[in-house]
């Protein structure tokens, strides 16, 4: 099964919700009129695209319709695809995880509570092992009850070791140990779990800043990827999350989880548009195989239900 098909399989629900509605709106051989634009705006808003981005997209469409003298509603679909794809693709160079063999690579995983950080780490470790990377995990969530055990179970599942400390201990200390271990054992990738924190809690965000500083200090040569995990079920607050986390740690990519539900995930369009953070991975289930590379072009194609 090619990537696109796998992606599409996982995105079925998204597609059903989002694209079918869009297609429904667009493909009835209708003329382009005010009502159509309104329906389109409605569909976008219902997909969590957010009112600002939705209005912007619809505005762009209006301009295109004039420029290209479009007449039929179905033509709008192509234009819509183009526009969303343009936003999601952004700067292509940066759309993949920052990983180099023969170098220490660190992936710091951050986000609010319950978005799927720990699960994503399990899945990501599995993915990287399959690509022949040597992977080490660090149980940096020393706060939530049994969060360490959760990561350890994932470690056993996929066969990687977990650097850990006591629950309630300083997360900085675990991260420090893990950085040392990653170097001495010549691991390729160190993935660090962190406690979920709401981005408006300044003290917890400071703690995160400290963790990032320790990584920089201990591994000055390493590639550091800071992966922000966002839950596709989240509405407009995801934008606020992305903005605040980026202010505190240098977020280099986003993993959008829970796309196997009915949530449309449209919020990433707004985030990509406003904050220019590339979406790198998507989560489409709770199994270890349920993580996919995010590819903007394919993602949009899949969204619009097109074959490879």
């Amino acid at each position, binding site marked *: 099964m090619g990537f696109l098909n796998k992606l599409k399989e996982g995105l079925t629900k998204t597609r059903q919700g989002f694209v079918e509605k869009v297609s429904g709106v667009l493909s009835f051989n209708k003329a382009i009129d005010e009502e159509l634009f309104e329906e389109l705006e409605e569909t976008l808003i219902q997909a969590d695209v957010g009112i600002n981005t939705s209005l912007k997209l619809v505005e762009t469409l209006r301009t295109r319709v004039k420029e290209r003298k479009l007449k039929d509603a179905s033509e709008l679909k192509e234009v819509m695809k183009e526009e969303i794809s343009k936003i999601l693709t952004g700067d292509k160079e940066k759309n993949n995880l920052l990983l180099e063999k023969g170098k220490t690579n660190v992936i710091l995983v951050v986000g609010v*509570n319950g*978005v799927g950080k720990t699960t994503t780490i399990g899945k990501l470790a599995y993915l990287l092992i399959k690509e022949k990377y040597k992977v080490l995990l660090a149980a940096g969530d020393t706060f939530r009850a*049994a969060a360490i055990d959760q990561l350890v179970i994932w470690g056993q599942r996929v066969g990687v070791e977990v650097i850990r400390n006591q629950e309630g201990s300083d997360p900085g200390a675990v991260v420090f140990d893990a950085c040392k271990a990653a170097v001495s054992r010549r691991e390729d990738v160190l993935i660090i779990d962190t406690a979920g924190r709401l981005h408006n809690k300044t003290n917890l965000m400071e703690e995160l800043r400290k963790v990032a500083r320790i990584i920089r200090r201990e591994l000055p040569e390493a590639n550091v990827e800071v992966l922000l995990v966002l839950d596709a079920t989240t509405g407009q607050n995801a934008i606020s999350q992305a903005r605040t986390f980026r202010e505190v740690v240098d977020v280099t990519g986003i993993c959008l989880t829970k796309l196997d539900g009915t949530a449309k995930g449209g919020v990433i369009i707004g985030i990509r548009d406003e904050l220019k953070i590339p979406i790198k991975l998507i989560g489409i289930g709770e199994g270890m195989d349920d993580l996919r590379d995010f590819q903007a072009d394919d993602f949009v194609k899949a969204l619009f239900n097109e074959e490879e």
Partner: protein
Amino acid sequence: MAVFSSLAEKLQETFKKLKNKGKLTEKDVTEAMREIRVALLEADVSFKVVKDFIAKVKERAVGQEVLESLTPGQHVVKIVHEELTALMGSSQSKIIISPKPPTVVMLVGLQGAGKTTSGGKLAHYLKKQGRQPLLVAGDVYRPAAVKQLQVLGEQLGIPVFSLGTELSPVEIAKKSMEQAAAKGNDFVIIDTAGRLHINEELMEELKNIKTAVKPHEILLVVDAMTGQDAVNVAESFNNELGIDGVILTKLDGDTRGGAALSVKAVTGRPIKFVGMGEKLDALEPFYPDRMASRILGMGDVLTLIEKAQANFDAKKAKEMEEKMRKAEFTFEDFLDQLQQFKKMGSFQDLISMIPGIGSNKKLKDLQVDEKEFIKIEAMIQSMTPQERRHPEIINGSRKQRIASGSGTKVQDLNKLIKQFTETKKLLKQFSGSAMMKKGKKGKLPFKFPFM
């Protein structure tokens, strides 16, 4: 807060255009509704819910008499706020208690919503009320979910029933009932694994648990940050399983929380509790009016005006005015006024609320130290009645006494007295009746020493 205030500003702009008094016209309402719609959608209220709501409110608002103290736009917001509050129901932070113990509560919801933590909090809440809850570890799927509940139970000193992860959650729930009966627990709280509402197999499992233990309360745990999907989730869980109430979690974040409205609108079930933090005592009752303000994101436009109207004793205000005009204003009056203001909420909020001042950039950025507030209060309270009425008698030794009595320094007191005298002078110049009305551009009609 930045988002909130920009929205409030936008509203103010709209409202400026709507100046005419009398009855609310169709145009007033339509203009205001456009902003309300944006506010609700930005707050993640479901598109459909917004649509219905706006239609309903529009109908109600047109033709209403505009309150003297408000602009037509503000009046529309007031109506919207009332309707929102009504829609979310009254405060109902109660769990149905079965006449025949144990009362069985089952927690359900999507992955990561906060079921396990809420279970711990609920157990703690019940224990504080003298109940003897039993927590049941029914999430056998997520790694270490059982352990998570056990750790919480240990922290709280509340028993946790678990049978590992081999047995089915249905079996576990059944067996837990036997244990509750044997140990005399009057509450059983069953944690379940997070699941997607479209996962038929797992929804079936919940139904089986329901059939097996006949819970008195099935509570849907919903993340307050949920977007448009909240309606689908709530509808599915309610249709498939039938829910009795909702726990809204992670409200200590900065989300506007429109999901609260969506969930209530599609299920008709009350929000019983809200989660306000990661600590186990951070479970609070749900207040519909607070939630309405939060969703609207314009608490500073309306709620505070209402509060001010309700709390500021009109007669006292009149007396004060009189005194001010005659410059008989004493520390006693001052203390009185301070306390009046304190009733209304934070000073910062209050400033932004005063008509004509709220939009003044310089004043809005003005940092009022609320600690300063407390200090001043303490100093005045340490004065004798005589001193309060005649501050000129406060000499060196009196100052010493007042300062030590209030835990402040003499310098603080000097500052207060100096500023008080100045304020009094200012008041004399100022014609009293304008006090509660619009101040001159950018200039406060009165000045407090701590500003």
